[in-house]
């Protein structure tokens, strides 16, 4: 086995900054407030200025209100939006919240492709996946992957076309009989 300890100085104290933040009182337990000398909690009605809600914001049912600031991009839309709205009816404690959300993400992806096409834009999947880097730095992997996909696609086409041909010839035989 290689000597991996070669870069550890015999005396770690030689490392610049060694022990500079050592804190024997660092007891990693909650609450931190004892260490931070925090006074009373803010009253629940003491809130920052509230960002106006001008668009649909989905809210976790584990909190009473919309937070004082929130992100506004990509409001729920389409079928994925319907799934997301349903998911937000359940708490974060439930699979009924998270699993539909993952489904919604996948539906959203398909909707994204359709939206691109609707706007006359054919997505360049190769470029979006950064295939150029794969070609440049991992050419054998790139070629293997491409060959595998091509082979599987060709196999699937042959399989389906032969099934189709069989069905058609069976139909023909039945008709002739």
């Amino acid at each position, binding site marked *: 086995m290689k000597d*991996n300890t*070669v*870069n*550890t*100085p015999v005396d*770690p104290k030689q490392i*610049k*900054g*060694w*022990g500079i*933040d*050592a*804190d024997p009182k*660092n007891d*990693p*337990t909650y*609450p931190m*407030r004892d260490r*931070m000398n925090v006074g009373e*909690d*803010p009253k629940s009605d*003491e*809130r*920052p*200025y509230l*960002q*106006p809600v001008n668009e649909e*914001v*989905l809210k*976790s049912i584990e*909190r009473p209100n919309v*937070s*004082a*600031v*929130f*992100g*506004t*991009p*990509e409001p729920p839309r389409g079928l994925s939006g319907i799934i*997301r709205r349903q998911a937000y009816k359940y708490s*974060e404690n439930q*699979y009924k919240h998270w699993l539909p*959300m*993952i489904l919604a*993400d*996948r539906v*959203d*992806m398909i909707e*994204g*492709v359709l939206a691109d096409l609707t706007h006359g834009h054919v*997505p*360049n999947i190769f*470029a*979006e*996946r*950064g295939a*150029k*880097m*794969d070609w440049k*730095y991992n050419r054998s992997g790139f070629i293997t992957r491409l060959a595998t996909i091509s082979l599987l696609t060709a196999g699937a086409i042959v399989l389906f076309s032969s099934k189709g041909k069989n069905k058609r010839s069976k139909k023909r035989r039945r008709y002739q009989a």
Partner: protein
Amino acid sequence: MLAMEYRGPKRVRAVQKPMPEIKHPQDAIVRVLRACICGSDLHLYNGNIPDTRVGSTFGHEFVGEIVEIGADVTKVKVGDRVIVPFNIACGECHFCRQGMFGNCQESNTESTAVGAIFGYSHTAGGFNGGQAEYARVPYANVGPVIIPDDMDLDDAVLLTDVVPTGYQGAEMAGIQTGDTVVVFGAGPIGIMAARCAWLFGAGRVIIIDKEEYRLEFARNYSYCEAYNFEEIGDPVVFIKKITDWLGADCVIDAVGAEAAGNALQTITGRKLLLQAGSATALHWAINSVKKGGIVSIVGVYGPTDNLIPIGNAMNKGLTIRGNQTSVKRLLPRLIEHVQNGIINPKGLITHRMPLEEVADGYRMFSDKLDNCIKTVLMPPTANQ
């Protein structure tokens, strides 16, 4: 403006999007000068974080120049160059008052399981991120910290996440002088956690990964022992062996959901999404730490469940501590460390790419091509 846009798992592109607007009196708009791709962006990129909507812009590691401020912003002004902590915090709520700026109650409507993070899905608040020419920065009186005149922007951008997260990983590990610290993961965060473990007086620091070039990098950057888990057999047994059969005093999980090393975890966590990512590193952490030891988690997992040996954690009397980093709390100390030459953040940067090539940047970082450790994205307007 030009911005990165998510289109679905492993598909991103650079597109023109509308300029961000002031939505709240404490908002600011920054012109992004540097943005990084983070290891935790890969969880989004791979489609592992629920409610990551197509059209979103990622990027929670960025620095920029303030170009517009809301009516109530007093702590920064137009023209200031600022470090933007990756978490969005009001500074006044129950959690912010405790210095838990990563757990703010007033910035994320969509989930209580996590605070708000720039460009990190609607589960983390639905804010667009900084892999763009411009970004909206809420609570500009609280988060942004002015970059000292003598600080390099490359150092500054790594103070938004990498340095504080590595540092907090070591801090949460409760390292006592002379302790043996094991770090799982030799990505930028793991390398930084290993470097910072010395600052807390560690006696021995060991890093575990499977990418040889990253292990070599860690040996040189963090002055630590580095082992390839594909070459050492069972990593838990190996760690026991080299720690007099007791286990490490502290273990830091700096991997999170993308962990390799266990087929069951990989298939159920990363391929089938039956878990919130692959919990291999956390599994190893619990089993390789000493009885009564401390496991510090800075690796990111999704919000559902993971398979970990919680029974062992109980039987061994472990303390498990994790959190999103409270960047704002740590920045003053870390800026000092950078200025005093104790930490060299920009030493982690291996690649620099124009924002237009963001898809290539993600692919390179995700597949660890060309010995990539850390990629900085340069928006076209950064040099204006």
